[in-house]
């Protein structure tokens, strides 16, 4: 008890000294946060869930999508069992099919990439679903983003081990957090503003949550927001205050307080099968359009990708970069006033590309092994051109405002109405001419008209 009191006194003294130092002129002269090395002053990163690149953009023109003639064997070892071709899923109801590590390895099949159907079948699931894909009709918003901004077709999930590991790679550049730093520690140390926006955030959900209150949702939140597994992000109010509800994102946009680096996750609209794709697109649209409508747009970048492939087919064998990865390709898109227009970027990237960009842009040291070696997406920007003005994206997502107007050909209307004038003018001219002729011939007896 006495030792504890002594520690408390020492802590107070230390805190007092620190406070005094902070208020001194020397502290005032401490350099502020480093200036970004590119025009990007705000990076926003959203992680959606469980779709492969071919599943979402397999038929996107100009991207490395579904190979022509591909047919996935039902049983790779028994070709006579037939094969499954890619097929359009549309609004077919789905279930959340397997996408764990074992499934990934079975689908990878030692690099032969021929186990996508089989891997689900052995889990007593409909393996043919794995070969399903969506197109522009199903993903109008995502495809419109690709049309206007940048789509990455060599963006791999960091690991085959699934979403948990990939979320950890996303923030720490390694598969396990351990005691090492995260990108947020780096940002905090350098005084660079950051926030982690979580949809429906409950500040009580973290590593300090009493065991009796830990439910499935708690587990999911901690998997998607790995820093909640770290005691310092629960105990240190300065750190914990950066983890906020997604609603604050819009407030920050409105008030001009968007931090330099933002991470965000959503649950209800994460597109995780069998989740509604429309909801996911509405979420991204709201986030992107909100950014565009804000003062932050002019020097911002919004990167959104997917945490893992979700068990869906993807035809590109993931490169082997280390013991953990890469995993299968996932969709990734970049929206920014500096993003190249309608560009398909073929740079080989993984989910650590985001923090790699943060490290390069703000001059921070790497936090994990993967990010230290990772490439980033600077090639997707064109900083030599002036920033593009915002233009909100509204593709038809089944809401009120999505309907596009059917417009007849102008020539049709000009032709018809011009012809109407022509006919009327002709009849009038004919009547006038005939009347004149009649008058010249001596007039026509009238029928009278007294009423």
């Amino acid at each position: 008890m006495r030792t504890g009191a002594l520690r408390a006194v020492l802590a107070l003294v230390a805190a007092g000294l620190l406070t005094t130092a902070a208020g001194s002129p020397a502290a005032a002269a401490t350099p502020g946060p480093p200036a970004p090395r590119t025009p990007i002053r705000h990076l926003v990163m959203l992680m959606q869930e469980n779709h492969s690149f071919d599943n979402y953009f397999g038929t996107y023109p100009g991207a490395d999508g579904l190979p022509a003639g591909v047919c996935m064997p039902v049983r790779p070892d028994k070709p006579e069992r037939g094969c499954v071709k890619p097929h359009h899923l549309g609004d077919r109801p789905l279930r959340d099919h397997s996408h764990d590590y074992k499934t990934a390895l079975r689908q990878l099949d030692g690099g032969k990439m021929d186990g996508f159907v089989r891997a689900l079948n052995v889990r007593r699931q409909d393996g043919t679903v794995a070969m399903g894909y969506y197109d522009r009709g199903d993903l109008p918003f995502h495809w419109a983003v690709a049309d206007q901004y940048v789509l990455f077709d060599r963006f791999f999930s960091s690991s085959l081990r699934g979403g948990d590991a990939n979320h950890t790679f996303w923030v720490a550049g390694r598969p396990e957090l351990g005691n090492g730093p995260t990108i947020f520690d780096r940002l905090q140390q350098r005084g660079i503003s950051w926030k982690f926006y979580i949809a429906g955030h409950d500040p009580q959900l973290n590593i300090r949550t009493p065991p009796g209150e830990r439910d499935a949702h708690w587990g999911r939140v901690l998997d998607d927001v790995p820093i909640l597994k770290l005691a310092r992000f629960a105990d240190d109010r300065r750190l914990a205050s950066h983890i906020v509800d997604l609603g604050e994102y819009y407030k920050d946009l409105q008030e001009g307080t968007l931090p330099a680096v933002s991470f965000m996750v959503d649950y209800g609209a994460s597109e995780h099968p069998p989740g509604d794709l429309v909801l996911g697109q509405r979420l991204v649209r709201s986030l992107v359009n909100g950014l565009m409508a804000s003062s932050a747009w002019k020097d911002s970048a919004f990167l959104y990708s997917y945490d893992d492939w979700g068990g869906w087919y993807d035809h590109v064998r993931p490169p082997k970069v280390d013991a953990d990865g890469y995993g299968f390709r996932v969709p990734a898109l970049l929206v920014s006033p500096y993003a190249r227009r309608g560009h398909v970027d073929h740079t080989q990237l993984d989910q650590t590309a985001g923090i790699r960009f943060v490290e390069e842009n703000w001059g921070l040291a790497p936090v994990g092994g993967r990010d230290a070696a990772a490439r980033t997406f600077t090639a997707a920007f064109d900083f030599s051109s002036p920033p593009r003005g915002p233009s909100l994206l509204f593709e038809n997502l089944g809401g009120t405002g999505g309907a596009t107007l059917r417009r007849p050909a102008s020539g049709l209307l000009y032709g018809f109405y011009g012809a109407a004038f022509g006919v009327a003018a002709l009849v009038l001219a004919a009547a006038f001419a005939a009347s004149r002729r009649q008058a010249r011939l001596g007039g026509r007896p009238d029928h009278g008209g007294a009423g």
Partner: protein
Amino acid sequence: MVQLITRPRAVAVAERGPDQAAAPPPLPARLPPWVVVPSGMVIGGVAAFLRLWQLNVLGFNSDEAVYAGQAAAIAGDPALKGIFPVFRAHPLLYQFVTAVLFRGGSRDLVARLLAVAFGLATVYLVYRLGSLLYGQAVGLLAAALLAVCPYHVVVTRQALLDGALTFFATLTVLLLAKFATTGFPPWLWAAGAGFGLTFLAKETGLVFAPATYAFLALVPSIRVRFRDVAGWAVCAALVIAPFPLSLLLGGGSRTAKGFLVWQLFRAPNHDWSFYLTQVSQALGPLLLVAALLALVASVGAWSWRETLLACWAAVPVLFFQVWPVKGFQYLLPVAVVVVVLAAKLVVGAWPRHRLRLPAAARGLAIVALVAGLGLASWGRVSSAGSTSFLAGSGGVPGGREAGRWLQASTPPGSRLLTIGPSMANILAFYGHRRGYGLSVSPNPLHRNPAYQPVNNPDLLIRSGEVQYLVWDSFTAARTPYFTERLLRYVRRYHGQVVHTETVPVRRDGAPTAQPIIVVYQVRP
């Protein structure tokens, strides 16, 4: 007697009566050019002045925005073609001509100048009609009365269909009069073409088909052969044909059907006395009384001319009085009849009637009528910035400015939620931003088919489909319920005022700025 108009001998003979000898000396049928030309120039100048003075000081109202938006869509305006559908309720003659003029850019002034041109052309046609029916003196006075008639001035200053409709309806009645005068069938066919153009200007022009029929049926002395009627119908059908054909081939037939159903089952928007109070006031009560007196005074000397004018006025009045939907400008074609009849009364153009005012009294009546109407018109065109608003009676203060602010200050693609669709239309035209009216009914029978209902405003805002909420005093005065709903969403979604349009008013004797349009930015 000297005929007041160039008309057939048979008519003249038929109209001579026993009172002829006691009638005052007739007016000359034709006036000397030194009277007609300067008078015509003055009338044209005054008509143009009243229609052009501060023409564009206020921006479009909702209907103007819609028609100009349609024209812009036809012209392929890249900013507006995705916002305004081409096919809505009406045929597209006015929009088609406007679209031709919009090829160089969709400007509100251009659309209004076209309306003014139709208005001025109608004044000329009224001169021709009055001259044909009752002589040049009546023609000139009728033109002068229409030139200064507040009803016609106000409506033909706006980019509305009714100015064009009135022009073509006047052309049609003139051609019918030509037919009645000469009995020459091609004039009846031309009247068919004129009727077709009237319909193409606005489908309510259809009322002039029964008016034509009533006229021909009520004047048995006008012999009409079946083939003449067939000629009328063929010419009318040929001119009208673009409307159904373009709907059919352009994919708008469903829209047109939707509009028809909506119009048929639409709830009344004004009470039965609307025309009596609003339109009679806009026409000028004196003018109206003069026209009615002219009809009464004609009882003893009724001719096909009065029948024609009566049919041309009575059928539209009856139709629109019975029709549940009432609009300020709907009865504009009747103004033509009113001014011709009033001019007839004042000039005293009765071939065998004693009712003729002395010259001095006539002059006084003419001055009183023209000056009274002119002053009333001047009062209407010179007052800008009123905070009260009647649809069809003029522009909307602040709408253009708010729209331009939206265009300049919000990202392209931003969307708005307004209290009602009217302000959404105005802001869409000027701001190039699509808007939704909160008051648009989800029931298809109770809404204009061109409008999309907002079934779930919360979803709309939460999903980022709408970024701005717009309050306006004009709609707020009409619909307190939806106004409160909009303001509730403003509060719920952290609305911040980002723009306000005001008009100067005097309150407690001191000048103050009264907000008329407020734009809020909201967030999920």
